[in-house]
């Protein structure tokens, strides 16, 4: 049975530690990875009209991050069934529940000390929804290095100790 794992991300290389952790936990199963970032879409008609996930994606996601994801996909190529990104744009617990149901999420990985970087004015903290939902969740602590020499660089991926 394929498992779908949702991972909260702020598109930092540090947050990919959760992916590594999740894949190490599901040792012999193939999984669908769903990376989710919360965004707060304002209700102005013009904002709603021009809201586009692909534009937001190219704005928020750095080349380094894409490359790091690609390294992970190569590392676990036989076990990653799919690897995709999505934005959660809702405001309520019910909406989040629907989002989980629609994506058939089996488990959520969230950082215990998750401090989402506010990448753009639109980023929203959705850990509150995660805490309240009924889906099984795993809290993982990892050390973020905001000041380290390779903060935000691809090399950071190789520094993490699983």
């Amino acid at each position, binding site marked *: 049975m394929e498992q779908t794992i949702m991972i909260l991300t702020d598109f930092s290389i540090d947050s990919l530690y959760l992916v590594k952790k999740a894949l190490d936990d599901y040792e012999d199963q193939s999984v669908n990875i769903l990376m989710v970032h919360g965004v707060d879409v304002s209700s102005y008609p013009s904002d709603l009209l021009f809201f586009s996930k692909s534009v937001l994606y190219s704005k928020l996601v750095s080349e380094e991050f894409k490359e790091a994801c*690609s*390294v992970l996909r*190569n*590392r*676990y190529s036989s076990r990653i069934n799919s690897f995709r990104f999505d934005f959660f744009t809702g405001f309520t617990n019910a909406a989040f529940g629907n989002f989980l149901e629609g994506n058939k999420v089996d488990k959520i990985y969230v950082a215990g000390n998750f401090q989402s970087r506010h990448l753009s004015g639109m980023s929203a903290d959705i850990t509150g929804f995660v805490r309240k939902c009924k889906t099984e969740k795993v809290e993982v602590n990892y050390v973020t290095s905001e000041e380290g020499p390779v903060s935000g660089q691809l*090399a950071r*991926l190789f520094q993490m100790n699983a």
Partner: protein
Amino acid sequence: MLASTFVALILAFSVFIYYFNSRYAFSDFYKRLEIRAFSMAKSDLDQKSTADLIRDFKGEYLEPLHEEKHVFIELDGKNRDFKKIANENNLNEDFVREIYENGSSTYRRNKLFFSGIRYDVNNKNYLVITSAINYYYEHHMVYMRNLLVISISISSIIVVLIAYWLSKRLINPIKVITEEVNLIGTENLHVRLDVSDNEDELTQLIRTFNNMLDRLETSFETQKNFISNASHELNTPLTSIIGEADVALARDRSAEEYVDALQQILKEAEKLDKKTKALLYLAQTGFNGKVLVFDKVRIDQLIFDVHKTINRIHPDNKIVIDFSLLPENPEMLKIKGNEQLLHLALSNILLNSYKYSSNQSVKVSLGLSENQVILVVTDSGIGIPKDELQYIYDPFFRASNTRNFEGYGIGLPLTRNIIKIHKGELNVYSVQNEGTIVEIKLPVGKYTL
């Protein structure tokens, strides 16, 4: 050349327009005159009823022309003296004859245009001749001619300017390149030409130049590195041998003392022998002026090889190879490269990490993204001061905190050049007293399995 072609083209075009426009103006005007002649004939010579009709028509639809005149000449059987008729009416004899013979004709005297027809009514022959000045030709054509002359001169100026600007634009960058390349000599081989953002042929040329300089610099630095290393390494045991022999020969000594001295000399000579052999090996593996051969290189195998080499030189090293991010399909780790050079580059990096971290553990990690092999070397050594990071690729530059370590300041520039030859990328991140992280990205070879 380009300019004169343009001007000739425009000139030909203008002449063409002028010629056809004037021809049209003539024939058009003749036609108009002819209509008038017909209508006059009808109105003056025909029966009353139709005549009225046409006079009304003329008054209503045809505007009077400039100096419009109508002449009616009755021809009876005897009166066929065209010369006389012509003189009486101030006309050309040929013109009058032609009207009579052909039924109609046109003729021009300077500004005055004539059109005539033969009109037969009530068994009588009449010649109806209408004349007027072609106002349109007189004024509009001159205006158009002036206009064309002016526009030709303006457009020629513009064309010349454009041609000048274009040639400047094309030739200037080449001039700049020539000047810059001329400035680069053996003493400043690390200087590169500025690469502009637009992807045109000139940028490609600059890139080619820069690549060539990379290759040149690498081979230069290798030579220099090799010679300074070699002379230093050979000199040390030689000095010991000479010193030992000098001391032994200074005065008479006992047999044991001679044996001691000779053993010392033998030891140093053996060292020298080992080193010359090593140098020979280096010369054989290093590139010796031959064309670089790029072949399949398994990067994980390369790491093991380098590790083995370092183990031989420094058996006490704590280099850890971390393959936790190695892709499941190791076949993809093949890159296109020169194994000797990559070996040299990687061992440079690892030896630096080993040297500057006072033998703390050094981690080598390997990963593979879609297009790149990523190699990360992490140490927790003395690091590089932040404001000196930008100079680390300058040959012979040594950071201010490296005084206690031996070195020539050549390893990193050489390594970067090797990586560049392989179209890769070398990044160094460092915090002083915390450690250094070296990231090497090399394009995947895309060998089919």
